[in-house]
């Protein structure tokens, strides 16, 4: 039945035959290594632990309990108390009114009820993936560009560019000032685009940031809003991780900025992308949201949502769940608390072995600083080191270069997609690796010194030998991954 492939390159479209899907990158090696050898506590305890997947698995117990107690939320249950037929037939791209209200309610509560969202501005999409593409189709023409601060989520290269033909221009952020977005870097990027005759149509920020795990402070948000207003370009805020901020009251949404400072920016420039994939842990349900303050964009994005509507079965369940305020408030609180606990566990343990990470209090991951482990401060060295992390330490983490980070040596490490026991295993592996590396460093230094001194007098030689013996003890790391990596 299978037909031999005989495709002329021109038989399919340019979009179909280019690399815009993003899957030909070397980063897939990490995934392949995991797929070929996945960690399992009993069946495969030495397998690769997946730390490259930003999933939130910490609160399913709360959700499962709610579902058991609310059979009416499922269209399959006889107690459903509504018309199955009505739900199954409903394909209006406005979405179920109760769904839109529930989402607006949830978005508000995630922001501590400091701001309200209008259900009539809620537009559905096929996940945040679909939302970003739709927003790009609405705001920019082929060849035009969005500015995006680095490091950024690798999926943006596909979501914003692949089928739309829109360009992404990096706004370079640096570790020296904690990767904050500065007005200078924005102006720099904007001007570079202008010089290349590329029309900039918008600025896209992810707040809280993926991969940094930090969120924007009020002043920076005001600066960004003023910048986009001055340039008359759009400001797209992906707030997909809004519910993962460990101290919820610290987080400032762009929605709050425009409420508090209404004259800072023409609000028809402001668009928020949201989803339930991270805050609720529902990536499979494809609940993407576009919330725009621009009436035309709401209108057009809604028409485009025909290409990626949320299943009414899912709309119905989500509507029930997220309009239950007791559940929602408890969920948000518990999720934050558990994420904070995980976050602190990691920071504490890794600090013990001197591993630093960017100070953060949001997201489902760390931005880990492994610069000193690179043979040299280059991306080649980063890739080499990364491969050894996968192959020797057996952790799939994501190298900073995959996020277009300007500086080598940073890695995103996810921590919310596993249970507590696996966390301990992962931490132990990292700690062992650090200790082994330190031992190796000491040994290498000692060997170098020994070589240097070996032509000196006997006494010194004896001392060196003893030192060498100390290091060549049974406990020495002869099997250090760093050693093997270098060979």
């Amino acid at each position, binding site marked *: 039945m299978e037909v031999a492939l005989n495709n002329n390159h021109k038989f399919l479209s340019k979009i*179909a035959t280019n690399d815009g899907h993003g899957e030909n990158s070397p980063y897939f090696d990490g995934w392949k290594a995991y797929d070929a050898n996945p960690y399992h506590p009993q069946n495969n305890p030495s397998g690769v632990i997946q730390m490259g997947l930003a999933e939130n698995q910490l609160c399913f117990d709360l959700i499962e309990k709610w579902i058991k107690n609310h059979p009416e939320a499922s269209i399959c249950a006889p107690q459903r108390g509504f018309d199955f037929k009505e739900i199954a037939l409903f394909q209006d791209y406005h979405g179920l009114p109760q769904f839109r209200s529930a989402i607006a309610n949830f978005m508000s509560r995630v922001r501590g009820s400091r701001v309200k969202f209008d259900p009539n501005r809620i537009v559905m999409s096929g996940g945040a993936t679909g939302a970003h593409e739709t927003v790009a189709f*609405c705001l920019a023409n082929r060849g035009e560009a969005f500015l995006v601060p680095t490091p950024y989520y690798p999926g943006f290269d596909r979501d914003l560019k692949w089928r739309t033909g829109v360009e992404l221009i990096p706004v370079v952020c640096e570790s020296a000032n904690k990767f904050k977005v500065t007005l200078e870097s924005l102006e720099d990027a904007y001007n570079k685009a202008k010089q290349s005759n590329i029309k900039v149509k918008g600025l896209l920020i992810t707040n809280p940031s993926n991969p940094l795990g930090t969120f924007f402070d009020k002043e920076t948000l005001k600066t960004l809003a003023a910048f986009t207003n001055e340039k008359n370009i759009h400001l797209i805020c992906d707030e997909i991780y809004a519910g993962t901020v460990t101290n919820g009251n610290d987080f400032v949404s762009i929605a709050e900025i425009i409420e508090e400072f209404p004259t800072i920016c023409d609000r028809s420039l402001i668009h928020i992308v949201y989803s339930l994939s991270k805050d609720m842990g529902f990536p499979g349900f494809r609940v993407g949201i576009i919330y725009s303050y621009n009436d035309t964009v709401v209108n057009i994005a809604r028409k485009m949502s025909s290409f990626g509507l949320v299943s009414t079965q899912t709309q119905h369940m989500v509507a029930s769940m997220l309009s239950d305020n007791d559940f929602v408030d408890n969920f948000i609180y518990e999720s934050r608390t558990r994420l904070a606990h995980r976050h602190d566990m990691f920071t504490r343990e890794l600090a013990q072995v001197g591993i630093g990470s960017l100070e953060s209090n949001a997201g489902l991951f760390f931005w880990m600083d492994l610069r000193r482990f690179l043979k040299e401060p280059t991306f080649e060295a980063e890739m080499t080191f990364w491969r050894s992390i996968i192959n020797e330490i057996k952790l799939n983490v994501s190298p900073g270069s995959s996020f277009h980070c300007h500086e080598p040596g940073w890695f995103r490490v996810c921590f919310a997609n596993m249970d507590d026991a696996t966390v301990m295993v992962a931490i132990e592996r990292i700690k062992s690796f650090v200790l082994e590396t330190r031992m190796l460093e000491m040994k290498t230094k000692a060997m170098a010194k020994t070589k240097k001194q070996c032509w000196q007098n006997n006494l010194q030689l004896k001392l060196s030998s003893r030192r060498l013996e100390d290091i060549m003890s049974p406990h020495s790391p002869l099997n250090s991954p760093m050693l093997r990596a270098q060979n």
Partner: protein
Amino acid sequence: MAIESVQCPSVELSKIAVSETHGENSPYFAGWKAYDENPYHEKHNPSGVIQMGLAENQVSFDLLEEYLESNQEATSWGKNVSGFKENALFQDYHGLLAFRKAMASFMEQVRGGKAKFNPERVVLTAGATAANELLTFILTNPGDALLVPTPYYPGFDRDLRWRTGVEVVPIHCESSNNFQITPDALELAYSHATSMNMKVRGVLITNPSNPLGATIQRTVLEQILDFVTEKNIHLISDEIYSGSVFHSDEFVSIAEILESRNYKDSERCHIVYSLSKDLGLPGFRVGTVYSYNDQVVTTARRMSSFTLISSQTQFLLASMLSNKEFTQKYIKTNRERLRKRYEMIVEGLNKAGIMCLKGNAGLFCWMDLSPYLKEATKEGELEIWKMIMEEVKLNISPGSSCRCSEAGWFRVCFANMSEQTLEVALTRLHHFMDRKRSK
């Protein structure tokens, strides 16, 4: 919509955003508006507008509900909701294997086992709307042309063209031969496109046809396949109504033709399917691209990231569609009920002096009011359409909205209402025609 501040229209949106290609500003939507403002209800509003412009299948819901009643555990997440977490986390664009297998099996059963479908070629999208757009992105470049036989589903103008930039060039079909696609019509459309410097990338057929409500004959399918092979272009066969054929032996899928040719040259063929019509589940957004081209399958799968089917829905339907007892009963019963409805509406229309194209599938009939037009033009057609909407209070779809090249044809849906409502609609039409004839 609450507008809190005056919005300055100065900020630029994209050309796509400001174009009219979404198609919603056409006069065709006036009918929908009339319905929304004054919808018929048996008890509460018996003189309201009856919606006959919506191709929905409401005749078999009892079967679905019966299935859900007797299979609660299979369709929810098991005892203690133990399957929930895995389902909620599942976002693999390959889709649930159990669901792909169930879809492939269902597509086979709908075709009476006359063609085989491989689950590995089933790519999932959120509805046929997304499937058609996705295929267009894969097979065409902006400015290229797709040839589509008229009359066609009005949504194609948006689905195929809006964000892709492709041009739709009509293959004109005529009532003189029951609107069948002919090799001459194909060649004419092809030359027309090339004369306008457009590169033709493929032919898109809907089989069974919307709005004709008729299957494409085997000989015609063979001719179309020969044509696309000779021109080295693609063939997309939208078979969304394949389960709505009144007699199973009257439907021939392109899959059967390909099988009979041993899949020679099949990498140019792609099938679109959905559960919106056959199963009456448009809200669940279940579409699929089935391609015989490996590269298209791979690329379509990657692109489906923009439009995946909710894993919750995949799970429910995997269970339902892999239950052969249910599917066999459903397919058979659904066909029979649709056939009965069709016979009812055609008989009723005939009594009113109105003829229809001989149909054998779908959720609608293709009604001929051309003898009653003041003038055989689009204006004449819209005039009578307006009259039917305002006087008879029926929302039906004018052929011009389907790009029909002859004036006076109308698509009339019959499966989105109860039998009683259909009776009411037919009675109204009967009286209207009586009044018209007595004038």
